[in-house]
């Protein structure tokens, strides 16, 4: 895929991330006092709320896509070569998908799992 397509992804996720990360930081420490924000009950209610949970999932995907693509760019600037480039491209894609999967699992389990 063309590099300009990767950069469009980078820009789109960047703009989305600015909004979502700001919202996340505000929700975790400014609009809600920090101590309360990380209490079990509060966290549970956030995951169980459809909109809040969905926002967290979108935040997850956007930040991971942006961050790992950025890491790919840094690694490609650091070293060049056909094997290195192929390796980095695939490794970054896999790690991104794997981390998104793991985080999504947290979101789904929290929203639907049995409380213990």
């Amino acid at each position, binding site marked *: 895929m063309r590099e300009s397509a990767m950069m469009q992804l980078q*820009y789109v996720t*960047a703009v989305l*991330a*600015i909004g979502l*990360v*700001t919202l996340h*930081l505000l929700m975790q*420490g*400014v609009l809600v006092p*920090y101590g309360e924000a*990380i209490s*079990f009950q509060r*966290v*549970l209610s956030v*995951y169980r709320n459809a909109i809040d949970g969905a926002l967290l999932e979108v935040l*997850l995907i956007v*930040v*991971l896509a942006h*961050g790992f693509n950025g890491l790919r760019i840094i690694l490609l600037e650091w070293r060049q070569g056909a094997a290195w480039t192929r390796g980095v491209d695939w490794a970054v894609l896999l790690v991104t998908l794997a*981390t998104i999967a*793991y*985080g999504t*699992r*947290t979101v789904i*389990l*929290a929203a*639907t*799992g*049995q*409380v*213990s």
Partner: protein
Amino acid sequence: MVGHIGDTSFFVGGPFGEGPSTASWSSDLAATENVLGHVVLVMVVLVVVYHGINGMRLILAEYGVIFAKPTKPDYPYRAKSLRTIQRHLIWVAIIASILAALYTGGTLFG
């Protein structure tokens, strides 16, 4: 980023958990709610706020909202692209990130 996703997953009992668990979450909080954990969070806020505002500055400068138009160079041959208002936005980014980090530090340690 990865660390945060990892540690928040203990809300549901970690990689091998099955659902929200107060016990697992308490142990996760016990492990991260300490001086080192707070320092890490403050640094994250510092870096993320700086990266975000600087990023906005770059997008504005590169894609034309704050922009210089090509002209004929003349003495003393100073580059126009570096002299628009975008220079000062770097300071906005630095100051905002320091303020955000101080606020976070205050909230976490105070």
